[in-house]
């Protein structure tokens, strides 16, 4: 670890998926193997007790990063380093990480009672002895996320979307993690319920000292939750900075355009300048800077050479030839 304050260090992380046609079709059609670079040279750190958000449009690789960090995918290249666990400091084990998924309808087993769903990690890791202690812990977790201990005997389908997301959070907390990866935790929820869940997550962070890696496409939500923001485009981080610095002075043209296009309730911009074009396919990314076909400032250099990630004026990093 580069600094003892870091909870997670991700270094030059790359993940390549083989999306080739089956072997026989490839031979018949004389097609080469095809690879999709979902995440490329991604480097970031998350400080203990803080929240880093990854934002970007669909297909930019943010969910792949979440799955790489939690070990659901193996990295093709690069390193993921967790700080040593703080609890039981001498064990030398890495920090525990857990994940909250986007769709609370798909991430809970419909055939299990809520109590069993939350108890599973406790049993699996042997965190409590005896059924009574486990039941007490489940009741405590349910209360922590704002549900009633009686809910342990019910099935997931008896709950609304927001309540189900609370159950997902309780399950994630059951193994007593210090690090939570939240992949679009509120995207499937209505705004008033989203506010309940975001408030709960902030409260838990304060009380339990959790560290979050928060993945979202919604910049307003991200601004509310995150201490730092990393903006991704086509598998790469194009800009990373502290939340306020990023909003006050976005330096990558993509970040600027993204901030301009979000509909804002407080100050609606009814005659906006539009971002032309659409994100290109990650299977066939443009040469040079991946954003150049949509970039209003693109120069000759942008079409030929990919910009390096470098220090950003005012802290953070940016990957653009033209940024100050």
């Amino acid at each position, binding site marked *: 670890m580069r600094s003892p304050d870091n909870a997670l260090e991700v270094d030059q992380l790359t993940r390549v998926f083989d999306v080739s046609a089956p072997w026989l079709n490839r031979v018949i059609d004389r097609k080469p193997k095809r690879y999709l670079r979902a995440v490329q040279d991604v480097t970031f750190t998350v400080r203990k007790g803080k929240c880093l958000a990854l934002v970007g449009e669909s297909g930019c690789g943010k969910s792949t990063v979440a799955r790489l960090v939690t070990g659901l995918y193996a990295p093709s290249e690069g390193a993921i380093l967790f700080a040593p666990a703080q609890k039981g400091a001498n064990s030398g084990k890495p920090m525990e990480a857990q994940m909250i998924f986007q769709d609370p309808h798909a991430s809970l087993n419909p055939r299990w009672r809520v109590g069993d769903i939350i108890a599973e990690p406790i049993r699996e890791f042997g965190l409590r002895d005896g059924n009574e202690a486990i039941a007490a812990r489940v009741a405590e977790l349910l209360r922590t996320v704002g549900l009633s201990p009686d809910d342990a005997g019910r099935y997931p389908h008896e709950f609304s979307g*927001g309540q189900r997301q609370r159950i997902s959070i309780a399950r994630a907390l059951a193994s007593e993690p210090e690090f939570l990866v939240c992949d679009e935790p509120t995207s499937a929820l209505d*705004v*008033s319920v989203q506010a309940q869940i975001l408030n709960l997550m902030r409260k838990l962070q304060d009380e339990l000292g959790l560290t979050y890696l928060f993945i979202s496409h919604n910049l307003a939500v991200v601004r*509310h939750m995150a201490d730092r923001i990393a903006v991704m485009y086509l598998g790469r981080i194009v800009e990373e900075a502290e939340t*306020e610095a990023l909003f006050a002075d976005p330096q990558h043209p993509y970040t600027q355009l993204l901030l301009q296009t979000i509909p804002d309730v407080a100050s609606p911009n009814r005659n906006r300048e*539009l971002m032309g074009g659409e*994100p290109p396919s990650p299977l066939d990314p443009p040469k040079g800077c991946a954003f150049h076909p949509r970039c209003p400032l693109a120069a000759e250099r942008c079409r030929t050479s990919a910009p390096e990630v470098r220090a950003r004026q005012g802290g953070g990093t940016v990957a653009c030839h033209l940024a100050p």
Partner: protein
Amino acid sequence: MNSQTPALEVKGLSVEFPTRKGVLTALSDVSLTVERGEILGVVGESGAGKSMTGMAVLGLLEPPGRIAAGEIRIGGQRTDNLSDAEMETVRGRMVGAIFQDPLTSLNPLFSVGQQLTETIRLHSDRNRAEARAHAIGLLKQVGIPGADERIDHYPHQFSGGMRQRVVIALALAGNPQLIIADEPTTALDVSIQAQITTLLRTLCREHGAGVMLVTHDMGVIAETADRVAVMYAGRVIEVGLVEEVLNKPKHPYTRGLMGSIPALGARVERLTQIDGAMPRLNAIPPGCAFNPRCSEAGARCREVRPALVANARGSVACLVHDGGVA
């Protein structure tokens, strides 16, 4: 037809679903108007009845759902009492529809051009060549580059944003007076979303069609709609100009809803939250449907259902503004 007649007039609409356990009222006494060339936003959370209202106007309620009371007039003509066969001529010609998922609204087995010309020829007496020329014109209008070639492509060859443009072209093909847009941008990325809402606004002006824009996203409403109707538990609780409703919401629910949206402008420590959830259809409380979650509710709110009362700036259905809660 008088050009002053609104594109859509819904009066006292109630939709019921008879079930074995009793009749569920999905929409109760909903009244709305959409003027020509106007975009009316309809917002609310899941289950508030906003899509149901759109479906009722289109005559596409899933059985056993039925219109129990009220009137729907499209361009002055009453449509709620028409037979299914008569509705077929209303849909497309008088009212067009844009749905959330552009992939499921298009037939994957026919080229975009085939689908457009079919619709155009069904609703006008153009011949094949004229219909094709008109289809290319429509694709150009909705901003599809290279429309002359793209017309022969199949839906899977288009990206999500482009597909939604094709769906908009299809909705416009019969030159309808009213377009029902049900969450047209929800499945799209933010940068594409802005392109589509801007397109909707321009087309609505150019064609003079009224648009009923159903969405849960207040940001989209703020930037696209002229007026907004807020729905809760199958009822319209507040209607007014967008700036009025969003900046000075009168109904406690609208106020809570606005407070719960994280703003881009400033970071707050804690978002306002409305505790609890919207009641299920079989358990709508008597009186005002919002009273169990409302911080201002009094004894009268549990007994009297507030009517939508017009004031200088719009209308609101809340006893706080209509005779007091006690």
